């Protein structure tokens, strides 16, 4: 029969899990010229709680998209304060790939990401605030509506409020209608806000 059974050394058949490589070894491997080896090092670093710093530093120089994805996965799974603040910091990056990768990674850890959302929503950089709203879009967390309401009540930047309003239309409850009315009053001369707020009110009131 042309179906052949692979030799037993080929797959780890019910043997106990292997020992992890040391963080020092994996750091050396992360500098390899072979992207496949770098990916594996990044994924194996999950076994090392202190790996976040090494991964965050490497991420800034990493050219391969697949290695970057592996790093983002490990950072999200490590889910420690260093990983979290490092990922949040990438929201300021000029590199769109890094920014998007960080956004996707932050979405993967809703509970921990939630702890930095209020700080990110009051960041002086309006782009960071808008990107944070895009994280909220798929962050499964009960405070999303509350955060969005706080943005439309307090943020002075038109585009930030517009982004929050757009999302509020999708996830908001009738209780957010008062905040939308107040937003309309704050930006009476902005046609987009007036249009989006009217639409939001119609949808929110429908529940």
């Amino acid at each position, binding site marked *: *029969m*042309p*179906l*052949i*059974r*692979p030799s*037993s050394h*080929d*797959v*780890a*058949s*019910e043997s106990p*899990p*292997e*020992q*992890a490589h040391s963080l020092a070894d994996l750091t050396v491997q992360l500098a390899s010229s072979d992207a*496949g080896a770098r*990916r*594996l090092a990044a*994924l*194996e670093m*999950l*076994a090392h709680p202190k790996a976040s710093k090494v991964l965050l530093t490497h991420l800034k120089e990493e050219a391969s*998209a*697949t290695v970057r*994805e*592996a790093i983002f*996965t490990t950072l*999200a*799974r490590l889910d420690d304060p260093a990983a979290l603040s490092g990922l949040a910091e990438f929201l300021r990056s000029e590199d769109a790939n890094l920014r998007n990768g960080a956004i996707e990674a932050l*979405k*993967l*850890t809703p509970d921990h990401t939630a702890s930095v959302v209020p700080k990110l929503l009051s960041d002086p950089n309006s782009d960071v605030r808008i990107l944070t709203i895009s994280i909220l879009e798929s962050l499964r967390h009960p405070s999303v509506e509350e955060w969005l309401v706080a943005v439309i009540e307090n943020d002075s930047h038109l585009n930030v409020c517009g982004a929050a309003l757009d999302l509020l239309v999708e996830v908001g409850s009738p209780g957010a209608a008062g905040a939308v009315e107040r937003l309309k009053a704050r930006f009476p001369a902005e046609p987009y806000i007036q249009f989006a707020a009217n639409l939001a009110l119609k949808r929110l009131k429908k529940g």
Partner: protein
Amino acid sequence: MPEPTAITEAEFQKFKEFFYRKTGISFDDSKRYFVDRRLSDRIQATKSEDFRSYFMLLRFQASGEECQLLTNEMTVNETYFFREDHHFDCLVHSILPVITKRKTKGEPIRIWCMPSSSGEEPYSIAITLLERWPGINDWDVEIIASDIDTGILNKARAGLYSERSIRNVPAHLLRKYFIKTGHDYQISRDLREAVEFTRANLAEPLDTRHYREFDVIFCRNLLIYFDDISRRTAADTFFDALHPGGFILLGHSESMSRISPIFNVRRFPEGIVYQKPVPIP
């Protein structure tokens, strides 16, 4: 009959977190009854005093035997032969012609089924190749089927199936590849010997380190049980397990595009599959 051990909300949450870390499988509150029943059964089977002492055993037992036994209890293993059969058409008509075009003669084609469950899927693939793929005369094919549940792997190796499992198997194939044993049907010895069954945990990178150089991966209806981050970890594992240009097939309600951007989408007449990019020279 002994009274079942009551599991408190705090204990359920504690267990849920532990089990998720170990296996990548997350239970929401709708699974509470299912989880409680199985926990309670294992607490009694191990003669543990209460949840607390059982949880200690689970976490600190050096052999990890109890953790494996509980994992076996907690995993769902309902499947049947030729489930979602458009994927088998896709394998024969679309995927294998692409794979063989790139491969050198003498190099085996490697297929990984994860999860193996009780073996219906890997044996369906084996039968499909033997019956419907002319290339089987020219190429060696290796089929490796893995699961986190060691109990179900033993069942897969034994290859005994109920009427329910074989309901989609045409009569002529049933005669050719199965032997009726009492109320059940056993898959032929040749096929049982052709598939390698192994234990693997997708949530543990060290566990899957040796799963490499596959051309095709079937991972259907597993990722729906995972949360977002475990799905992404699984996607990374599959990426590294595949040859460049290798394919992965997911269940009908699953989409790799929503999990990770590292695969390319391939639309074949039989359906959508995902391909590991081939590096540009």
